Every structure is written in structure tokens, then in C-alpha cells.
């Protein structure tokens, strides 16, 4: 028997390289195309008003709460878990914030709305982190199934919401606190932020080229790297032009962008992020590679809890109330956003940008269908069909690759 071994030489042409990078990110691009198609359909169906600056502004703002949840959910699902408690936990955090704003701070620190708002944020985050740590402890250290623990968590937080609100809504539209969910960044600051982003992206291109040079790696042509940075710059420019012609960047969208950047960095450039993907990809191999699986999964749930805290704070501030229905069903929206965004329910695969675009698709559908006054019953049917068909198409392409 003869075995011939062929060495594949890497002398790809420029076009080949662009194609390769396209193919590598094919899933993200297909998703972006899906967004464009959905927007185009609604644009025509609504006679153009769908893409009004006001609507664009609202669309992005409305998707922020579930987006925070889906950012954490990606890592949970990537490690092979699930978290059903996130909607109710975010809801509970929003109720805690509203309760503190309305009943507590004015008694102890009257007339200091900024300090009160800051304390509400800190408390909201702490509640989220503590809840995440508790569930993470049961899942990682006690080995209970995530599905069961977080189902219990969902019921528990629902109970806590009912207990704390006693069936009433609690107002949370105080000065400063309201800004978190309802505020707008003045257009001049919008341009400053844009400038900072452009400088950062360009600096990043040159920084990474310098790094590669230092290690003697081949460089891509400069214009290709700059082109790579230009795509997000153009998209952000279009967005800022649009929202600035309304009231400016909604503050929660800015917050989401910042948190997403951090999560993107964590998932790609830290040991913790790498280990999470390795555990989901092959638990046994990860264990034999010296990864402390218990610790990584524990930290994933703490992170999820912290993001529930952020989502809850934004929710309380945006809605302006803590209500008994707070966060109802958000966990499933977050999971759906991840799956739409290419996260594998089996673990090991999933990206932060994908989850955000998934959330954007769901948000786009919801606002579009609402604008067209589609009955809620049919809104659910349309969303159901799109979710399942999208995954079906995805599986079809994976099989035929």
C-alpha cells in the first residue's frame, strides 16, 4: 500500500484571499444580508416610513435589553449550557432598581439624584452577579443540569418580582436614572464618538500590522486592511447620520456597543474565552488540556448574571417602571437571537457579532410587524416561521459545503 502525502502550498492570489476571508465569515455576511432583505421588505410595505430616523432610533433602542442578554447567552450556549432564568432575573433587577429609586434612596440620601442613580446601578449589578454566582455554583460545582437550575431560577425570580412589586408598578423615571435607558447623546458628542472610533480602527490596523511585522509574518496589502476597517466605519457613519437627524445616539445603544466590544475581546483574546469555546467543542479534550472546566463554567454564569444586571437596569430606566411582567419571555428572545446568529445549540460555536445581528433581526421583525399593525397572533406565527426556516437554511448550507 502506498500513501502519498501532498503538501498544500499557500500561494493564494489576492482575489483568492478576499474570497477566503469572505467564506470564513460567510455566516456573518449571510446574516447581514438577511437584515438588509428584511429592512427592504418593510421599507416597501410601510411606504418608506420603516427607515425613518425616528424608527431606526427606536428599533435599535428597543433591541438593547435582549441584546445584553444574548451577549452573555452566547458564552453560556457555547460551553454547552443554557440559561432560562435571564429574562426573569433581568426583570427582578429592574424591580429592585425601581424599588430602590422610589422607596429607599429618597429616605436616606434625599435630593442627590446622581448618587441615587449610581447606587441603583451598583445594586442592580450586584443582584445580577449574586444570582449568576448562585446558579453557576449549582451547575459548575454541584454538577446539576443547567436547564433545571435555571428553570428553577426563572420561577424563583418570578416569585421575587411578585413579592417585591406586590402586584403594583413602581415608578423609576427619576432624573439621571432615566437617562440610562431614555437619554440621547447630543449630536456633537455623537460626532466626537465617531471620530474616536475611526481613529481607533485605523490605529488598530497599523498596530496589528506593526505587530505582525515584528514577528516576521507576511502582511496583507495595506488597502485590504484599510478596506476591512472601512466597512464598519461606513456602517457606523450611516447610523450616526440617521440618528443625529432625530435626537442623537440613544444612550443604551452606546452602552450596548461598549459592552459588546468588551465581550468580543473577552471571547477572542482571553484564556477564559478560549477555554469556553474549547469546553463546548470537546469537553474531554479540554479537560486533558489542563482546563479547569468547573471554574470556567462558574465564571460564565457570573458573567451572564452581570449582563442580566445591566439589562435589568436599562429595562427599568427605559420602561420607567418596575412591573410584574418585567422581562417576561426575554430569555427565549435571547436564545433565539444566539441561534439565529449562528450559535450551535450543541456548543463550541457562536460569535458575539452573530448574536447581536440575531437580536437585530428579531427586533427588526417585531417593530416592522407592529408598524404594519399585524395582529399579535400573526406576529408570533411570522417570527416562528422565520426562526425555523433560518436554521433550516443554515443546516442545508452546512451539509452541502
Amino acid at each position: 500500500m502506498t500513501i502519498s502525502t501532498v503538501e498544500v502550498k499557500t500561494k493564494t492570489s489576492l482575489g483568492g484571499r478576499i474570497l477566503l476571508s469572505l467564506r470564513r465569515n460567510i455566516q456573518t455576511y449571510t446574516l447581514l444580508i438577511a437584515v438588509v432583505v428584511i429592512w427592504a421588505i418593510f421599507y416597501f410595505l410601510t411606504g418608506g416610513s420603516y427607515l425613518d430616523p425616528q424608527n431606526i432610533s427606536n428599533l435599535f433602542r428597543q433591541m438593547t435589553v435582549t441584546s445584553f442578554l444574548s451577549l452573555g447567552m452566547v458564552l453560556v450556549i457555547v460551553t454547552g449550557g443554557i440559561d432560562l432564568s435571564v429574562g426573569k432575573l433581568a426583570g427582578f433587577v429592574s424591580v429592585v432598581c425601581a424599588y430602590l429609586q422610589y422607596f429607599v434612596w429618597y429616605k436616606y440620601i434625599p435630593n442627590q439624584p446622581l448618587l441615587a442613580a449610581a447606587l441603583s446601578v451598583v445594586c442592580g449589578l450586584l443582584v445580577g452577579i449574586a444570582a449568576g454566582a448562585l446558579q453557576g455554583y449549582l451547575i459548575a460545582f454541584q454538577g446539576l443540569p443547567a436547564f433545571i437550575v435555571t428553570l428553577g431560577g426563572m420561577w424563583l425570580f418570578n416569585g421575587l418580582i411578585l413579592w417585591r412589586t406586590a402586584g403594583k408598578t413602581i415608578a423609576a423615571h427619576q432624573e439621571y436614572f432615566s437617562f440610562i435607558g431614555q437619554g440621547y447623546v447630543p449630536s456633537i458628542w455623537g460626532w466626537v464618538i465617531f471620530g474616536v472610533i475611526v481613529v481607533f480602527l485605523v490605529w488598530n490596523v497599523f498596530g496589528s500590522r506593526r505587530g505582525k511585522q515584528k514577528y516576521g509574518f507576511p502582511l496583507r496589502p495595506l488597502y485590504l486592511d484599510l478596506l476591512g476597517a472601512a466597512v464598519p466605519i461606513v456602517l457606523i457613519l450611516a447610523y450616526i447620520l440617521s440618528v443625529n437627524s432625530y435626537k442623537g445616539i440613544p444612550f443604551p445603544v452606546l452602552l450596548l456597543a461598549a459592552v459588546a466590544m468588551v465581550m468580543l475581546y473577552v471571547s477572542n483574546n482571553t484564556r477564559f474565552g478560549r477555554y469556553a469555546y474549547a469546553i463546548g467543542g470537546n469537553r474531554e479534550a479540554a479537560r486533558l488540556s489542563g482546563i479547569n472546566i468547573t471554574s470556567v463554567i462558574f465564571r460564565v454564569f457570573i458573567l451572564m448574571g452581570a449582563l442580566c444586571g445591566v439589562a435589568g437596569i436599562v429595562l427599568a430606566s427605559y420602561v420607567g417602571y418596575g412591573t410584574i411582567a418585567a422581562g417576561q419571555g426575554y430569555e427565549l428572545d435571547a436564545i433565539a437571537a444566539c441561534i439565529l446568529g449562528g450559535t450551535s445549540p450543541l456548543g463550541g460555536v457562536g460569535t458575539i457579532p452573530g448574536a447581536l445581528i440575531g437580536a437585530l433581526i428579531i427586533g427588526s421583525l417585531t417593530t416592522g410587524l407592529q408598524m404594519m399593525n399585524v395582529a399579535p397572533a400573526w406576529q408570533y406565527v411570522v417570527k416562528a416561521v422565520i426562526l425555523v426556516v433560518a436554521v433550516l437554511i443554515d443546516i442545508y448550507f452546512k451539509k452541502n459545503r
Partner: protein
Amino acid sequence: MDNEIILDFKHITKTFPGVVALDDDSFQIRRGEIHGICGENGAGKSTLMKILSGVYPYGTYEGSVIYDGEELRLGQSSIHAAVEKGIAIVYQELTLVPTRTVGENVFLGKEPVEYNLINWNKLYADTQAILDKYQLDVDPRAIVSNLGVGKMQMVEIAKALSENAQILILDEPTSALSKAEVEKLMEILRGLKEHGITCIYISHRLEEFFQITDRVTVMRDGKIITTQPIEKVTQNDLVRYMVGREMKERFPEGNRHPGEVVFEVEGLEAADPNNSARKVLNGVSFDVRKGEILGIAGLMGSGRTELVLTLFGEYGRITQGTIRLEGREIEPKSARQAIDTGLSLVPEDRKRMGLVLIQSILRNISLPNLDQFSKFFRINANEEMQASLHQAKSLTIKAASLDVQALTLSGGNQQKVVISKWLLSKPTVLIMDDPTRGIDVGAKFEIYKLMNDLAEQGVAIIMISSELEEVLGMSDRVMVMCRGHSTATLPVAEASQERVMALATGVAVA
């Protein structure tokens, strides 16, 4: 037509990409006999049985199997076809549903129904009838998970016989049984013989052939070596047939100069982490020198893999014994600790334990070594790439780039990725569990050369192998394991294939 012959294998050849698993095999099985088949790991026994049971259907192999005077043509679609023809197999790993009753398992998929409802009384009565007929002492209503392994095997046999099997294949039925249970099984098999059922009996325990079989066939390297009436052979004859081959020029010349002892294991005993009553290691002692390759030989189930996983802190609970690395006593409690003290493990099953198949070569190589490239939170991607690329190049991994998914690589290249990942952590002792399993000859040779290079650089290598030839061809010394303990450590010059096989099968003691 000879009515005495129930099964006639005629010139069976089965190839897999790069490997000839069965090579022009012909032999016959007589009606009503108990026919033993023995051979080393990978000799082709299982492949042959898979042809008989329809796992490899008609058309995927060359040659023909004549069963009861007719050519056996098992379809592509259903493994059940063989069962319907009266050929039943009891696998080494039991295939029962543990949470259901004996009766439900025996009639799984063929439950007696009345108006679309299961007739439970009939099911249990029929089960009882089968159990009685073959004197199997099990309660039909018992839950399977509450039974011992011996009884589970009886259920497995009852399940096989419930479809009027004419031929019963037993693949290493005794590997998990106690002595008393083995005796009981032998009794049952003799009973089956009285009922006219033909048995094919595969085992690594040679003494069992002399207790139970009428004739025995020996396989080696995919070939049938001989078929003999059992009274005409001795255990030593069987060992000689199993290994009798000349050493080919398959191993590169090494220039190793073993130095001082770096790794010592003394009297190691360990228990199964899931069943602390079961001892998996039962007194293992050996040492390895700097720049030496120590081979560990042993048949499947001898505790080889359990040993290395225990040394790596990831399997057995150590109940006794010491492990010393460079004179210091160590107690590895996790893979991380083992890696940090200077051990590396290339595990047995690269797909299940060695690689994250859906990830890139780069991510796989760097996975256990990210601490090297990290400052605070940040992984320096350039350093990661540089070190991984260097390692991949020095092992000549063949791929378009390091961004290629590990699952697209050939077995040999996958194994090189696993080895790269473990060399990057600069081990003092490199443990390799069956490092060349399932890879082609060319890649094997490269891995052997690599092992020589590493040993010359002073790495102490412990190599487990299922291939006796490989152990003898590559090692400086050979440790033989049998049933959880080390029976002997021999310099390679004193280790003949016959002697090692005799030690591994428990025929001889050192």
C-alpha cells in the same frame, strides 16, 4: 453440499483507506461446534464479525460467505437482517437499556402486541420460556441496572437467542466477568451446544479456549494463520501463531543514550473513580530514564490506559504507591497540575480526547499552552501564532494554514497536531498512548523518527502500544501489564514477541 459446514468464508478481503483489514481469508465453521478465534488487537477478528453481522454489508468486501449452503447477502439498510437469518452477536460492551426490565430488553423492538398494545403477560412468559430453555437464571421482571455484569450477559444472550439464532457470536464475553461468572458462562455455552447452536467465541484469554472450544482459528495482520482442533495445540502454540512474524524495516534507527532516572512509579494501586470497589491498577512499578523510550505492552483491558490517565491526574483514585518526578514525589490531582510539573499526555483516542475537532489547528496547538502567551488578560496572538507555527513546521504538519479545522486533516496529521500541542509545553516526561493507532505507514514512520529525536534531546518517553512489533521496535525497555499490574520490565534485547505475549496473556509470569 456438506451439511456439516454451517459457515464457509471464502477469500474474504476487506480494505479501508490505507489499510488491508482482512486479507484473502478462508475458513469454515462446523454446525454445532464452539469455534474460538484469537489474535492480537487489530488482527481482524472484529472486522470479520462485522461482516457476519451485517455492519459491513454485502458488496463492501470481496469474497463470499456461504451460510447454510447459501451465499450471505446482507443489505445496506438493516443490521437486523443478520439477526433474522439467525446470526446473533453479543458485543463486548453490553447493549442493554439499563433502566428497563429483563423482559423488555429481550423483546426490545419486537414486543408481542395485541390491538397495538403490548401484551405484557406474553412478553414476560416468553422471556421466562427462553430463560428456562437455556438455563439462564435471571428474573424476567428485574431491572437490568440492578443486575451484575454476569447476569446482564445472560440477558444479552437471551436477547440474541430470542429470534431463534443458529449462530451466536460472543466477542470477548469474559473481559468484565469474575471467575465464578466465567464458569457459569462456560456452563451456559455447553448447554447451548446441546441445543445445537453454533458458537463463535472470541477472547484474549487463551486458557478459555481450552475449557470450551472444539476448534480454534488464529488471525494475524488480517490473515487466517491456522485453524486447529483444540486438543492438537498448546497455549504456547497459539502465542507463536499470534505473533510469529519477522521484524520488517519499519522502525528508524535511533541513537538514544538513556541517562539518569527521571520518573519513577512504585507499587501504584488505584480504584475506578465511579466504582471504588473495583481496582483498575493493582501494583504497578516502573521507572523511565532521561532520553529513554519505555514501551508498555498489554492487551486491551490490562489497565494501560487507566495507568497513564491516573498518572495524569484524570482517572483513578490512587489508593497506594508513589510517583516521583526528578526525585520529588508528586501527586497529580488534575491535568493542569500534571502539565505544570512537566508531564504531557498524547491520549489514546485523538478524536475524543486529543482534539477539539471543530477548531483550527492553531487553537488546538495553543490550548494547553495559553499561559505562555498571556499577559494579564490578553493573549498575544502573534506569539501564539509564532510558537505554534514553529512547532507545526518542525513536525511537518501538512495543511494549507494553521486556520484549517482539525477535523479536515488526515489521521496522521491530526496526531501530529496533538503531539505539537504537547511538545509546546516542553515536557520532561512525554506519555504517548497508542500514538500510531489508525494512521498510515508513512505517518507512523515520521512519528517514530520524531520520538527518536525527542529522546535524543533528553525527553523521557513512555509509549503504550497495541502493536507488539511497535513496542519492540521502538523501546529501550518494555514493561508488560496484565490485569492491572506490571508483570515484568525487560530490556528490549530480552523481550521476544512470544515472551511479551506470554506475559501479557498471563500464560507466563516473570
